[in-house]
Structure formats: C-alpha cells, structure tokens
C-alpha cells in the first residue's frame, strides 16, 4: 500500500488526469478544467461535467488571480519530505473566474516573523486577501536532483499591509 514512486511527494506530471496542469505551470500559465458544453469550471478534473453531464472537458488558462479562502501554518512535518520546510503556509485560494474553484497551494514571499503570527493582529494574511499566482520550482531534499514547476501564490502586489 505504501507509495513507492521515487519522486513522491513531487507531483506525477505524467499522470494524464493532471498533466496539463503542470505543463501549464511550466509554460507560465495557470490552467484548470472547464466544461466545453456549458462553460462551467469543473474542479477537480473529472471525466464528466457534474452540471450538465457532458464529457467534453477542456483545460483553459485563467488569470491567476484569486482570494485567500483559508490557510494553515504548518509547523509539524507530517511527511519526511517537509521536515526542512516547516513552518510554511498551505492554503486554499479561490479563483476570481469562479470562487468555487479552490486550488491547494503554497503561499510564498511572506515575512515569516510577522505573517505567520496567528493571533497577533498584525498578520498580513486575512480572509479573502487578494492573491496572485507565481510559478516556482518545487523541490524536496528527499528527492535529489528533481524539481517540478508548480503554481504557488503570494499576496497580490499593492495589497501587502
């Protein structure tokens, strides 16, 4: 049952269900799935549109702008690969095109001392803060010599406190 893929927890960019997501990131584009028949965004990628039942699902580029829906400041590594990353902020960002689409992402470019404070009242992270995508290499020291470009998010310029 254990996951044996040697590059775990890097994403498996060859997995056809999600390959276009990572191909998009490598090309500097945030791509999500949409139903060609009814134009509804459909996330996560699925075989058939839950709104109209059509199977014509396509990958489309979106603006990369969104809002901070919620986040957690991870202080304990639950996987060995994250041991040297803590503390870090993992978050759900709601896309401007359709806030029902939430991306799990890493929030980057934070001033850790201030931004990680949960209850000090000076944290720049707040509900519905405007966010924008950046494409950065994701690396884990447990997976030497490998990286995958992924979408991460930071506070939208001009909105830092």
């Amino acid at each position, binding site marked *: *049952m*254990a*996951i044996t893929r040697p590059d*775990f*927890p*890097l*994403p*498996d960019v060859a*997995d056809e*269900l*999600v390959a276009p*997501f990572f191909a998009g990131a490598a090309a500097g584009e945030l791509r999500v799935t949409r139903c060609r028949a009814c134009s509804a965004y459909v*996330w*996560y*990628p699925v075989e058939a549109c*839950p709104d109209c039942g059509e199977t014509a699902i396509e990958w489309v580029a979106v603006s990369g702008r969104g809002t901070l*829906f*919620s*986040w*957690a*400041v*991870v*202080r*304990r590594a*639950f*996987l060995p690969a*994250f041991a040297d*990353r803590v503390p*870090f902020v*993992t*978050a*759900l960002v709601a896309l401007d095109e359709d806030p*029902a*689409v*939430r*991306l*799990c*992402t*890493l929030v980057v470019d934070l001033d850790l001392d201030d931004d*990680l404070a*949960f*209850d000090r009242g000076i944290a720049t992270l707040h*509900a519905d803060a405007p966010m924008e995508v950046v494409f950065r290499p*994701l690396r884990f020291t447990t997976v030497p010599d490998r990286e*995958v470009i*992924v979408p*991460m998010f930071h506070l939208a310029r001009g909105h830092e406190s």
Partner: protein
Amino acid sequence: MSAPDWGHAVDLRDVGGEVAIVGIGETAYSKASGRTATEIGAEAAERAIADAGLEPADIDGLAWSGAFPGFGAAEFHAHFGTDHELWTTPWGGGMAWAGTVPSLAADAIRDGKARHVLNVFAVAWATQRAEMTGGPGEVHAQQSLKQNLEVPFGWFPQPIYFATIMRRHMLEFGTTREQFGAVAVTLREHANRTPSAVFHDKPLTLDGYLGAPMLADPLCLYDSCPISDGGAAYVMTSVERSRDLARPPAVVLGVGEGYSGSGTHWSQQRAFTSTPQVFSAPGAWAMAGVDPDDVDVLTCYDPFTIASIMQIEDMGFCAKGAAGELAASGGLRFDSGRLPYNTHGGLLSHAYVLGIAHVVECVKQLRGTADAQVAGCEVAVYGGYTGHMASTLVLAKAR
C-alpha cells in the same frame, strides 16, 4: 430558504422501532498493543455476544467494515469454532457505518435472513504506526488527485485539512481558540471519569490547551485525536426478541445517511465549514419522531475539535456558527450541560477507535451504566462523519 444542494440524503426505509442493540463488548483501549485487528475484533465480539446472553452459534448475521477488514465471517468461524451460515455485510463496523448498519440489520432481520446480527470494529493503527504501515493518511495519499494536487503543496494529511476548515470557521463565525479549547477540555474531563479511556489519568486545562504546540495553526496538539488500538462490537436483534434477553434494549428509533457532493475532496466542498450531517440528521429526526431538544446524550465522530463543532451545528443543536459558544459556556458537560456530549471522552480523549465506542457509550447511557452517567438519559444519538459521508443513529430506552 431552499434546501442546501451541495450533497444529498439517502432515502432509507423507516426502520424506527424494529430493532434494538442488546449486547455490547469492548476490548482495552490503548497505545500500541502489539495485537492484530483480528485478535482485537475477536475479543470484542466474544464480549458483546456474552453481554447479550447469547452463544456464538446464535449469531447468524455479521457486519464489519470492508474498508478495514479484520474480523469477517472466516475469522468469526475460526475464532469460535463454528461453521453455520452467516448473513454478512461489509457495510458495517465503525466510522459513519457504525450509525447506518442498524438499518441494514433491520432489513436482514425483517426478511428472515438473520435473527441476531453482530457488528464488529477493531483497529490496531497504533501498533501499525509503530511498524510504519497503515493509518488514515496512507489511505488518502493513494488517490491520484490528492497525490498530485494536494500533497505536493503540503495540504495533507487530515490535521491540515481540518486546520484549514477550522480557520475558515473562525473567519466566518468568529469562533475562537478558547471555544475549541472548551471542547477539548470538556472531553478530557469526561475521559478522566472513564477508566477505560486512553487519557483517563491525564488532566487537561484550558491553559494547557492554549499553550500546547501547534501542529498547523490554528490546530494544536489537543485539537487532534491520538492513534489507538482497540475495538468494540454490538449485537442487534428485533425489538420483539429483545424482550427475552437479559439487557435492557437500546431501541433504534431513527437512522439517517447523507453525502457531500464533492466526495472525499474536502478542499472543494462548497459548504466548507459544514458536514453532511446537514443531509443525514433531518431524516433521522423524522424517522425517530424526535427533534434535537429531545436528545439527552450526543456522541459524534470527533477526530478534531472542529468536527465536533460542525456536527453539533449541522445536526440542529444550535444555530450555524454557535457551537463554540455552546462549548465555552459548559453546554457540553455531562453533569450540567444542556447537551451532554461525548461523555466517554470521544475520539479526542477516549480512544481513536473510529466511532464504535461512541455507539457503545450511547447504549451504556441508556442502560444507566456509563462512567460519566447523564441522569435520566432516555434518548442518545450517534453522529458519524467520515469525510464525504455522515450518519445519524437515534437510540432510545424501550417505552
């Protein structure tokens, strides 16, 4: 206001008043025991059958959890040295299924397929974790979408999901850490009165809660349940048959079952700070002919404090967003609260045996034999919550 559409209820046959729980059995609850789930399950089964005043050969129906096999028909026969025919279902055991399996048992009993149905659940995750296998995270990491769109971004495993849900609940409703702390402290006090609880001899104060290490802000150590070894079982039969047996029956008055439309992908659940109790509980209340005000004891599947807060709200015990206040005002205490809650300590402080001990606690409360006994308990309810699924089981004293 239109009905919420982010999930659905299962249309269950009205089984209210048909069956009862007539025997309960528990093993020790512990950290790593070195035992297998099969061994633990056998012991729980043995004790439940004995409690009902029955013999293993009387058991002609067996339910377990197909997701966590350990004690099925082959193991039953091997343990008891029997070979009779068993009606079986893998849609039992713990988690949300600990709440829905009475509905399946009622059908089997009505159709003459079984007379006495045993439901068993056992887990040895503490032992397995010591051996670096199993556990709730590993099950999830197998799924492609989680493995590629969540895990690489650190949104994994369950403590992270629930930290994120917890923060959103705080942002939407103003719920505070002190309020989550009140849930943890109340459940620990209940565990302190319950000798079988893993945390029986470990007190917890609100200051202790607030000063505990953060796992993932805002979720701290005491918002999260331990990993345990242990198991329990219960025997069901018709209410008619229960009158011949030794124990006072805990009559199944209502069963509910509901699902979230986003499956196990919490990140995409439209009502992010809700549970499918929104869909499960109303059906159970209707079938039982009771409403939340009639409930004397509530037990809910509570791997994290936020799971308690959400279910208490979603089952209709208070307005959405108000469960934190209810907890902080002492409302969940067994002796003085308006809603005595997880009176054995819950997953959080009793043991992480995935809900089966919650149902057993409901039965004890109705029998008047619980360690933190609620005076005059007539109606006890279990709320099961397993990701995309919720169940609601309404039990009552025979009238």
